[in-house]
């Protein structure tokens, strides 16, 4: 220990007005270990920093206390300054004389007395500081994207374009996600498939992108830069390498009773199927719950018609283990179940549909070949009613508390498309509020009203009753007219809330990422780090983080990609040196610390310990400093105080306590 230098900042008059800085310097000089103390107008200025550097060099200081503003403001500044002068940056402590002293106290005597004590505590702490060196860990230059919707595809493309390898894991047989199911997109009304499928093809063709379709993430271990992931490739019963995608098998398959997931269950698909014509990969899968061969060993027609010999009924799930440097969650959303909204007769009438179902009905490749017709009798509807906010913005326990964000716009889109194609159809929209923030969004909604004559009525619908004549009576209210309305409709479209995909819970647990009460993954900071999860190396893309439309999803996907690229571009990651560390000599190996570690950073090893010449094998805790974030939960769980936190050690904090209570 060579000696501590104390540097008291006036911060202009910010500190000096309520703290007698000369007195602080004087008192600091009396503290044990202090060999240098001075004051200056602005310590953070270049001249101020030069004073610190000079003192470090000339007096060969072993520790520095800067009495200035909050460490949250300038701790890094002073650490860098010390480092440049040849002192370990972690030998610097800050006494917060501005935010926590001069700015809150008015009396100069009181302020000075407290400043002296705070300085004393910082001196006591710094005298126990140890030099810390940030550790390094390697980076596997490959990223994993979980989810192959527009969010996942865009993230993967952006990462791959930067030259890094990306794997996409998609649970369904094809990438494309919800966007592939949409007919047109707002507010430009361009065809969804026309803008999405080229991206899907790009992703499939990209030499840096590898798609695991019909696969799920099974297990994740490791940490930022070095994740190990087990991927379960579900048995397709079709050999990906042999299949030519001719489609003969699907045509011939006699089991055609399964509901098409892609068409929202509005029509049927065969047991061997691709979800849709432009599926990528264009290799069918056999649904084992439907296939006659797999169920009771009959049929086998597909194998017989397959000229490539790609059908393999014996195929089994396969687990692939791969290493990644970063993981992006892009698991997307589902439309909520409408069981809690029986008043809207969704389960009673085929003509009450969700908006996503309407997308399929409007789509030329959909169950009605794009003709707007009632699912009950195939007749063209004359009156269509849209009901907004079904299950969104609820404070009861039936629905979701949040606004699903996309419904106002897609309803305006649907209304415009219908009025455009079928001018004689009356469209009524019951709304609570119309929310259209976004470029050209409100203009789009106004066009629906002003150009297309869509009837917007403010007021939520109370109930929908199916009538014996096949019509639907919508019991609504016009709050602006203060009138109850009964609207006769041929079709009712519900703007049902969206919710995160159910598997996100499981994935979040595997990634130790936290999720909120609505199952959306929590971002590291709601404003400043919106695409990162609090777990290092895990990033968020798309609706898994919160409701979003396509443009927003694509921007966020790009942002997540940039974060991933920034990570993968590094050869080494510097780790926070203020991590926990166990004293192997005395560790009990009791597991208390590992039980409370939120990062899984603590493991146990049977180590040969040399205890003053006595060699014994003990079970001891080992902290992975790349994983440890330095919270200190383990240090308190440890009964013998063997687990300590570097930079905030037990003895350092005790020294501060003692200095304050002296």
């Amino acid at each position, binding site marked *: 220990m060579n000696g501590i230098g104390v540097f008291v900042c006036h911060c202009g008059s910010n500190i000096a007005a309520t703290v007698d800085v000369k007195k602080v310097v004087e008192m600091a000089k009396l503290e044990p270990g202090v060999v240098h103390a001075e004051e200056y107008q602005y310590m953070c200025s270049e001249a101020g920093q030069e004073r610190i550097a000079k003192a470090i060099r000339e007096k060969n200081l072993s520790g520095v206390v800067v009495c200035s503003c909050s460490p949250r403001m300038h701790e890094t500044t002073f650490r860098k300054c010390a480092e440049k002068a040849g002192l370990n940056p972690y030998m610097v402590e800050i006494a917060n004389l501005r935010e926590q002293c001069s700015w809150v106290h008015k009396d100069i005597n009181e302020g000075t007395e407290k400043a002296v004590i705070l300085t004393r505590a910082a001196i006591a702490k710094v005298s126990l500081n140890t030099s810390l060196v940030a550790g390094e860990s390697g980076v596997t230059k490959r990223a994993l994207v979980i989810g192959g919707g527009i969010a996942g595809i865009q993230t993967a493309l952006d990462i791959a374009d930067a030259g890094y390898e990306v794997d996409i894991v998609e649970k369904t047989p094809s990438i494309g996600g919800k966007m592939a199911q949409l007919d047109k997109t707002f507010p430009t009304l361009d065809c969804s498939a026309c803008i999405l499928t080229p991206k899907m093809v790009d992703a499939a063709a990209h030499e840096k992108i590898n798609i695991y379709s019909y696969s799920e993430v099974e297990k994740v271990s490791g940490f930022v830069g070095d994740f190990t992931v087990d991927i379960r490739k579900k048995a397709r019963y079709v050999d990906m390498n042999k299949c030519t995608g001719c489609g003969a098998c699907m045509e011939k398959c006699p089991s055609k009773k399964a509901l098409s997931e892609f068409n929202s269950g509005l029509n049927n698909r065969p047991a061997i199927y691709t979800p849709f014509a432009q599926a990528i990969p264009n290799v069918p899968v056999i649904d084992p719950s439907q296939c006659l061969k797999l169920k009771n060993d009959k049929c086998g027609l597909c194998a017989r018609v397959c000229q490539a010999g790609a059908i393999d009924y014996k195929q089994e799930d396969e687990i692939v283990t791969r290493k990644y440097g970063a993981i992006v969650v892009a698991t997307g959303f589902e439309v909520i179940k409408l069981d809690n909204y029986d008043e809207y007769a969704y389960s009673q009438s085929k003509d009450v549909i969700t908006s996503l179902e309407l997308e399929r009905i409007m789509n030329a490749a959909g169950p009605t070949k794009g003709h707007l017709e009632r699912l009950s009798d195939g007749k063209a509807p004359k009156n269509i009613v849209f009901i907004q906010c079904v299950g969104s913005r609820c404070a009861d326990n039936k629905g979701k508390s949040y606004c699903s964000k996309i419904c106002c716009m897609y309803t305006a889109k649907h209304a415009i498309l219908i009025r455009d194609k079928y001018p004689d159809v009356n469209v009524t929209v019951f709304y609570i509020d119309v929310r259209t923030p976004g470029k050209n969004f409100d203009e789009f909604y106004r066009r629906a009203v002003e150009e297309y004559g869509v009837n917007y009525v403010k007021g939520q619908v109370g109930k929908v009753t199916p009538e014996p004549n096949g019509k639907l009576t919508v019991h609504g209210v016009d709050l602006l007219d203060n009138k109850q309305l009964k609207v006769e409709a041929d079709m009712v479209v519900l703007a049902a809330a969206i919710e995160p995909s159910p598997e996100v819970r499981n994935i979040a647990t595997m990634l130790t990422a936290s999720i909120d009460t609505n199952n959306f993954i929590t971002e590291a900071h709601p404003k400043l780090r919106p695409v990162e999860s609090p777990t290092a190396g895990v990033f968020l893309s798309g609706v898994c983080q919160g409701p979003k439309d396509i443009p927003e999803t694509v921007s966020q996907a790009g942002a997540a990609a940039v974060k991933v690229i920034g990570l993968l571009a590094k050869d080494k990651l510097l780790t926070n040196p203020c991590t926990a560390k166990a004293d192997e000599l*005395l560790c009990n190996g009791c597991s208390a610390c590992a039980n409370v570690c939120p990062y899984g950073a603590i493991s146990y090893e049977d180590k040969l310990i040399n205890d003053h010449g006595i060699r014994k094998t003990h079970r001891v805790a080992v902290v992975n400093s790349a994983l440890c974030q330095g919270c200190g939960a383990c240090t308190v769980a440890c009964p*013998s105080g*063997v687990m300590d936190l570097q930079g905030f050690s*037990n003895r350092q904090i005790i020294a501060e306590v003692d200095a304050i209570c002296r």
Partner: protein
Amino acid sequence: MQRLIDRMKELLADGTVVRVLGWKKGDLGYNPEPHFFNSAEELDDFIYDGFCGANLSKYMIKGSNLEGKTLILLKPCDTYSFNQLLKEHRVLRDKVYIIGVGCKGKLDIEKIKAQGIKGITSVKGAEISGKCDELTVETVYGEKKVAYKDAMLERCHVCKGKEHKIYDELLLDSTDTCDGDRFTDVDIIEGLTPEEKFEYFRKELSKCIRCNACRNVCPACSCRKCVFDSNKFDSEQKANVDPFEESMFHIIRAFHVAGRCTDCGECSRVCPQGIPLHLFNRKFIKDINEYYGEYIAGEDAETKGPLTDYTLVDLEPGERR
């Protein structure tokens, strides 16, 4: 007891175990002590009677480091401690063969003395095979009778039950001894004013001589080096100077075993000053049960302890449920 000895010899003979961890006769007939018996011959000094209150599970930390398997005798309450040690990886299951022995309540010689009986030479009626309802105390002044229950350790009056939570085999019968509520004393203290509470504990704790017997006997205090012996917190062992020194020691000791303490009562049993140390542990146990749901440490070797666990809706500090 002969059955027990025969069985132990059998297990030694067939090589299942290489030693026995049990109780050895003391010099006074009422002070047996824990002992590792390394051969069948040594077992001549073995005893298991009403005075064998000592919980042997902690000795298995040492036993786990010895060559070969150890036969350990565990009373029902000792099995909780053993499970807890197993959970904390302090003992190894495959290094031990457990005979769960029956228990009819354990005796406290101090309780006999407290009845004004002096000059005790021996006590009869404490045999495990007996009925355990009356003790005959031989003293230099003649024979005295004491009801077995009146000489029982406090902890046996609030016994957790006579079921062994872990064992390889069971031997000997038990009798239920529970006739009290273990939280009664805690309730009483909780009802006092701050002044009265402070006075009570000051009076009790000022007796503490920091002999560390409570810590050394405690099966949960199994750290290889106790914080009070190390410099980890600048808290090394030192002579008591002021009343708070002991309070600090005892609060921290109780806190360190909170959620791990099985309420085996050894701390109070061994305290030479008779400080009711279990009152600290039971306060934590009571709070844990009330705030976080019933939890019995050592009931199994897997469940997460209450202090290494949480729920999103836990009670706020200072709030009462």
